[in-house]
């Protein structure tokens, strides 16, 4: 009886630790791009999707809100590897879809014609123009 209880407790502990470690590993995986494949990776390889990403960038606020050349502006230049709110694909997706509170960056989640797919195309376009060696 006592042995059975001890075995049960050990099982519970193992499950608990497994869940916690999985959570930790999942959280940590967001820090290194490439561990989890990004939907933008696919669009990076497709000319039509990259073009659509560029036209979305052009048509929303790229160039006016986000300059296409490094300059003396009050808005972030998105191609210089300097990120205030995270530069992973996941971070960019969050910034574009939910906006950035306390800034002029609005929410575009659900507002682009092809929804999330268009956000990933935007990210792919930004990646394609990046001046970074590695994002």
């Amino acid at each position, binding site marked *: 009886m006592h042995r059975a209880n001890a075995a049960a*407790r050990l099982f519970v*502990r193992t499950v*608990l*630790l497994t869940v*916690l*470690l999985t*959570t*930790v590993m999942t*959280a*940590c995986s*967001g*820090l290194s791009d490439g561990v989890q494949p990004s939907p933008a990776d696919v669009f990076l390889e497709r000319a039509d999707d990259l*073009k*659509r990403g*560029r*036209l*979305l*960038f*052009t*048509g*929303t*606020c*790229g*160039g*006016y*809100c986000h*300059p*296409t*050349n490094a*300059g*003396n*502006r*009050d*808005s972030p230049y998105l191609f210089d590897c300097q990120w205030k709110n*995270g530069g992973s694909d996941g971070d960019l997706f969050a910034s574009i879809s939910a906006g950035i*509170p*306390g*800034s*002029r960056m*609005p*929410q*575009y989640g659900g*507002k*682009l*014609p092809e929804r999330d797919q268009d956000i990933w195309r935007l990210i792919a376009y930004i990646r394609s123009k990046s001046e970074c060696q590695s994002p």
Partner: protein
Amino acid sequence: MIRGLVDRRERLLVRTLFEVSVCMVLAAFCIPTTAFAQGEIPAEIQLAPLPTHWTAKEPVGAGAGPVTRTMLENPFADTSRWLHYGGDYRGFRHSPLETLTPENVSKLQVAWAFGTGTTGQFEVSPVLYDGVLFITSSYNRLFALDAKTGTVLWRYDHQNGVNLPLCCGPANRGVAISGDLVLMATLDAHLIAFERKTGKIAWDSVITDYTKGFTATSAPLVVGDLAYIGIAGGEYGVRGFFDAYEVATGKRAWRHFTVPAAGEPGVETWADKSYERGGSPAWTTGSYDVETNTLFWTTGNPSPDWNGDNRAGDNLYSNSLLALDPKTGERKWHFQFTPHDVWDYDGNTHIFLVDTEIDGKPRKLIAQPNRNGFYYLIDRTDGSFVLAEPYLEQVNWATIDANGRPVVNPDAMPSDEPTHRTCPSNLGGINGAFTASFDPDRELVLFATIEACQSYAKGITVFAEGAPYLGGLPELVDAIAGKSYGNFVAVEVATGKVRWRAREPHPMMAGSLNTKGGVVFSGTLDGEAVAYETETGKELWRFRMGGGVRSQPIAYELDGRTYVVYGSGSFATMDDFAGGPQKIPEGGHLFVFALPEK
């Protein structure tokens, strides 16, 4: 036995807690967090809020009575006043002072200077009455200053709302004055009236909900009992309008929408329901014709700016000159400068109410150097077209036909991958953010210009309320290549021919003031005040103030001494956009120059 069981349980609990803690510590390192939640600052580092409003305990000024309608109609009967953004209702910005001449203007000296404590473009046209200068800065600080000494008499720092939908910087261009009130519009779309003698708020009216994409940057205009103010938002897909408010109470008297609603005349010039987000803002100050009791207002670009595919048609009443009944806001007629604009060529640059002869016949006209690079004359009695002449050295987006309608160069149309260098840039040859002036004696229209071209790119249009609604972007080909430059120009009012140009190495984006004595004042993005001889364009005086000049200079005389006032301070983002200098600090200083005391 029982004790042993408890011990094992305790050890197990401790071990489990330890392991969980290790996991949580690891997670804390791995999961990105912010130092503080948005808007939360720990109590130990919170500071007491700074004061934002300093009223005067005693009435300021020299005891003059209220500003009357007669004064507003004849503002220069007394040269110790400057009562209107445009100098007078006709918009001449022509000081009757004969004391400022080509011979003595170089003797101007700094009498005093004043820092606003703000950055961003300082676009003010000061108002002067009863020895008090009323100055607004970027971000809506309002100062009442002793005009002779610069002493602060009262001050109000407006606390604008958060996340302002600014397309182009935190500008304000000044106040209007009437009775014993001074009126300022704010970036978060309020119109506020202050008691001019104390600075106390008399009323505060909300024009509209700024979070939808609206701002207000212009100086109001007062005619009789009403104050007029328009809004900006052409880059946000708003439905443009301008309003009339009762000066005494702040109650709105009427609203004139610049885009028709369903069933209204002009709605047929918008495809489908594109009129619902048609822009056409009214972000500059209008003019008033005393003789015919007509209010004139002008409008900006249709939305979205650079992709007109979903708004096929002329898009009335964007980029238009509107004539209205000042009491009711009812439109009498309109003239549209740039139908179906896809370049951001706002039609709301400075207008003048001029009387001159055309082909030997006296005509009542409106003159306007338009943002699209052409100088226009329009008959102000009926809105008919008289002439259009290019005033820029580079205009290639269109020619103008005999009816005043542009014949568009197809290469200038925005495209997916533009290669055409189209002139002027989206900032225009002149821009509504700075004034022109008119010398009625020499019959010259005098203003600063931007000589720059761009390639206009068209993208996928996306509307999201409160977010920019642009549809494309201007590629800054000249600005990046260092090819942008500026001219100060003099245009003959009746012919539209350029009399002279004075070239500057960078685009000019400063206002204009001219004097009866024959001097015209403006400024440079390099931070210099400049004066030219009105007749010839000969440079007479140049003074480095520091910040780029985006203000509207004024002149006055107090106790026999002649003064000229400039704001010095630009907006680096816009300077960069225009191809201006990169290394000039933004500034935020007022300079008051004076001729030597007699």
